[in-house]
């Protein structure tokens, strides 16, 4: 369990984190979303014990991160932003150092090392110095160091940044596999990542929590949630069709994309307009070329919640 109570961090007069409170329970994969400068990294640094809060309290598995820092840090695996490491070391010597510094008993080190090396496919680069590795490999070395001691809590600051699509997929699978027994907090810019791995998302901006919900719950806040879009084969019918659809009781409003002739019908509150629109189209024998049920759009929700600040 991570408990964050009224966390505040000030840099001089700038308040980076403003009275933040939340709890994360085992089994939760919490995605931290927010525009650049929202306070994501600062919050994670405080929870991981790198920074001291100006006010407020953080406990990790019952240990206060300030007064019982060492016990709390034993339970945390942390991937800092940019996955820093020691460039002159090889992945093997680096992981051996982390194992020793984290107090993994010598008898278990070999086994743990082999496990994370296999898990993150590091075997090909083990004896190469880290500064000669690609960005993707460096990130994976950073991940390996974070999970080496099989921590109860994982804090990953942008874990898939710089990875190619295959590697992203692998890392997300890995997070998904570890998710059942652990508490995982990740920060990301990528909304698709939230959908792929998180079962909870917190959107923060200017140091405050603006939304705390499941990814599906966030999608449901989108005006596109349950909206229906369609395209017609002949352009003369568009205006008439739009009027007909707009007069359905399940439809609150319609929009027409002038460029490609796509009509989008937004649902009236609590209604599902897909079936009535489909029935209408059949009755009128419209030459439909496309008919879609829209799901919510996270990016749109994100923009509307954070007030259009650049993501």
């Amino acid at each position, binding site marked *: 369990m991570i408990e964050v109570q009224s966390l505040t961090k000030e840099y001089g007069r700038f308040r980076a984190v403003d009275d933040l409170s939340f709890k994360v329970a085992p089994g939760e994969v919490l995605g931290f979303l927010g525009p650049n400068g929202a306070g994501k990294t600062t919050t994670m640094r405080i929870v991981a014990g790198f920074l001291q809060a100006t006010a407020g309290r953080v406990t990790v598995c019952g240990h206060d991160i300030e007064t019982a820092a060492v*016990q709390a840090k034993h339970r945390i695996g942390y991937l*800092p932003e940019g996955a*820093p490491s020691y*460039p002159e*070391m090889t992945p093997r010597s680096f992981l051996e150092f982390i194992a*020793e*510094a984290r107090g993994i008993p010598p008898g278990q080190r070999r086994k743990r090392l082999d496990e994370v090396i296999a898990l993150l496919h590091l075997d090909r680069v083990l004896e190469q110095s880290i500064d000669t590795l690609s960005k993707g490999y460096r990130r994976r070395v950073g991940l390996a160091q974070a999970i080496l001691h099989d921590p109860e809590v994982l804090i990953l600051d942008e874990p898939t940044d710089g990875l190619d699509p295959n590697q992203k997929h692998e890392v997300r699978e890995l997070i998904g596999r570890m998710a059942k027994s652990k508490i995982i907090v990740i920060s990301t810019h990528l909304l698709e990542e939230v959908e792929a791995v998180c079962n909870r998302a917190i959107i923060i901006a200017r140091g405050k929590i603006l939304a705390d919900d499941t990814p599906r719950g966030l999608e449901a806040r989108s005006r596109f949630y349950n909206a229906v879009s369609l395209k017609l084969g002949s352009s003369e019918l568009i205006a008439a069709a739009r009027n007909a659809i707009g007069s359905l009781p399940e439809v609150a409003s319609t929009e027409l994309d002038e460029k490609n002739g796509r009509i989008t019908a937004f649902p009236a509150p609590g209604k599902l307009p897909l079936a009535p629109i489909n029935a209408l189209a059949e009755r009128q024998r419209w030459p439909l070329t496309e008919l879609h049920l829209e799901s919510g759009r996270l990016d749109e929700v994100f923009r509307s919640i954070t007030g259009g600040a650049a993501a």
Partner: protein
Amino acid sequence: MNGVVAIFKRELTSYFATPIAYVFIVIFLVLAGSFMFFFGGFYEAGQADLSADGSFFYWHPWLYLFLVPALSMRLWAEERKSGSIELLMTLPLETWQAVTGKFLAAWAFTAIAVLLTFPIWITVNYLGDPDNGAIVAAYFGSILMAGGFLAIGACISAATKNQVIAFILSVVVCFILMVPGMGLVQSVLLGLAPQWLVDGLASLSFQTHFDAISKGVIDLRDLVYFGLLIGMCLYANSIVLELKKAD
């Protein structure tokens, strides 16, 4: 203690994984030898003695003044610059463990460089009949003094991300701590300040305490001086690190 050992081992191996170790050792050995033979007039003096004015140990404070800050400047500044400090400080270690581990590694490395001057010791034994006990004491004192220079440099390195600044500040601070104990400076100071002040400053100087040990006299006061100096600097290092680590 395991944490200190882990950091110590990582740091010491990393010196030898980069050219730092080899460049440092070669330059140190070349300078230590050439100062003694060229400036010190070792052969002309005709004495199998390493502690006389101008001889081998006489030059050590001057060598350390520039070489030790070159070693200590990267200790923390580099970690802060590269961000690896975030990794280090989120390991389940106390700050003092990281500070001590890093310092001891740098000190051990310096000791290796100093002990690699052993051919000079062999040379004087071949040429004459020196007081080997005094030489051992002088080696011990020299390494102890290097620890003092290093602890100051480590503390200054923790205060900045910029290695050049760390280097220059360390040289200046070490220089200030060195000169009040030198005979020439003392006679100048005596014209400007009362005796007690000059003596007081001298007793705070590296030079005064090293001079005693390098003559082969190991006095408890000199050991306490270097011990306290190192301890205080490392304590300050921990505090500076806590304050500045995230800047």
